[in-house]
């Protein structure tokens, strides 16, 4: 099993370490005795260092998203362990878990359904603060406005509802909300897939700025290698529920080892190479 890129040994230790993680779903047919165990992913071991981005790429399917959900503590893995800053997340009490959740936040693919359509932008961004009981009402509102500016949204649109914003702007709201509690790790579950090319670029730029300013770590789940290549420090390739390759981005793109990785890279060709092939 891969132990990760040798070139990235941070003396402070990883922010997040996942070891031998596996998730199985047990399905049962109604009116019948048969139980079927479907494995979403097995034996996944990864590490994310502070201020770095790890991208997990692979085919569309439940594997990558399931993994993201387990790391975000939205689901419990069947086997394996998750450590955040040295703390074992799976053995925590409810109260400690609630505090740990502040450190890991998730941004979803479909911004329209991830945001409560009845709340205003400000209310959405301030909601985590409200849930964790932080600050007075006006303090929360001010913090939300600050966050809006940070993600490039106009303060004046704080009273608008999610559906009045464009897709790209909604993802910014989602990012602002995720930043509200000062997390250390942000998980992006196909967060760019529903955006068009121009918006994808803009959001990636924003994320890079945030990473530089706040030493945030990102776990970027995507099936789009192009978007990932600009932004990731390390890349892990997932195939049929297992991690088949996990190296630094540079090494992976330069000399992919696993056949599936090579397949993926081959299909992510640039416009220039496509045009070249067509004219031949």
């Amino acid at each position: 099993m891969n132990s990760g890129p040798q070139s990235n040994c941070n003396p402070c230790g990883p922010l997040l370490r996942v070891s031998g993680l596996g998730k199985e779903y047990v399905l049962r047919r109604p009116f019948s005795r048969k139980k079927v165990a479907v494995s979403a992913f097995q034996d996944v071991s990864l590490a994310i260092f502070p201020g770095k981005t790890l991208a997990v790429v692979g085919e569309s399917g439940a594997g990558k998203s399931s993994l993201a959900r387990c790391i975000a503590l939205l689901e419990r893995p069947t086997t394996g362990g998750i450590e955040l800053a040295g703390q074992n997340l799976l053995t925590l009490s409810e109260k400690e878990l609630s505090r740990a959740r502040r450190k890991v936040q998730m941004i979803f693919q479909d911004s329209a359904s991830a945001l409560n359509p009845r709340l205003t932008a400000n209310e959405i961004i301030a909601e985590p603060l409200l849930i964790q009981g932080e600050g007075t009402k006006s303090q929360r509102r001010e913090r939300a406005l600050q966050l809006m500016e940070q993600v490039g949204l106009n303060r004046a649109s704080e009273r608008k509802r999610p559906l009045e914003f464009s897709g790209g702007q909604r993802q910014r709201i989602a990012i602002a909300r995720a930043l509200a509690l000062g997390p250390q790790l942000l998980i992006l579950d196909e967060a760019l897939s529903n955006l068009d090319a121009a918006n994808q670029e803009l959001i990636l730029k924003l994320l890079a700025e945030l990473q530089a300013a706040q030493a945030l770590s990102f776990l970027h789940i995507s099936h789009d290698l192009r978007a990932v290549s600009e932004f990731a420090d390390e890349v892990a390739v997932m195939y049929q529920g297992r991690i088949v390759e996990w190296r630094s981005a540079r090494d992976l793109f330069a000399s992919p080892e696993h056949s599936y990785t090579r397949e993926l890279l081959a299909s992510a060709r640039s416009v220039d190479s496509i045009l070249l092939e067509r004219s031949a």
Partner: protein
Amino acid sequence: MQPLISVNNLSVTYRRADASQHHAVHNVNFEIGEGEVLGLMGESGCGKTSIALALLGLLSPEQAHVSGSIEFRGEELLSKDRRALRAIRGAGISLVFQEPQLALSPVMKIRDQVAEVIRAHNDRKWDCCRADAELALARVGFADVRRISSAYPHQLSGGQLQRVVLAQALACNPALLIADEPAASLDARSQSEILALLRELQRELRISILLISHTPEVQASLADRLMVMEHGRIVEQGSFEQLYRNPVHACTRAMLRTTAPARVAEEMDFETVT
């Protein structure tokens, strides 16, 4: 030679619930020749989908006001009645859907869903339609047609479903195919498979395609010509290579990512890999 479809001064205006109007498409002009692939690019909300809906006659007078002219095979589509439009839809002009999981009925078998399209345009017995459906499925590259035919949508993968939806669109041999983000919901491998399939079929069947996609790589694989839209208007139109090498409008440049950082171009040059 007369173009297959010729659109002049097409405008689409939606009536909103609060009685205000939304000009989705404004005085758009374009042509598609036989066997030609015209790409359409633009940000979400620029009017791409409205054009597709207008071409198919799917906008009812209560929803929107459509003006201008759409000439298809020499006939004016905007003056046709509902029945005539329904005959053209699926047989003359066909639509390949963006999210195939949502575009198929969850409780009908795959073969029946393709057969329904055939039956709607041909006065044949149900058994014949089912046989033709299996042929249509084989044509889009399914090796195990039997198994796919009797499966339900929830049993197939995204890539397979995209091919099924393509089979539905091609089942009645349309002259014009409107492909709405045909690779958007797929991963890289399935994407390149579907694009290769489209390319092959387009060459074989000589169909014209209106390719709607915001991904430059998709357009590069298929489009002969390209038009870029912004806020309901066409801002630039021309051959794909020309727009890619010498974009004039800022929107074109943004959509084609021609200001992409050099680092990406470098790492994506895989001619030296294996």
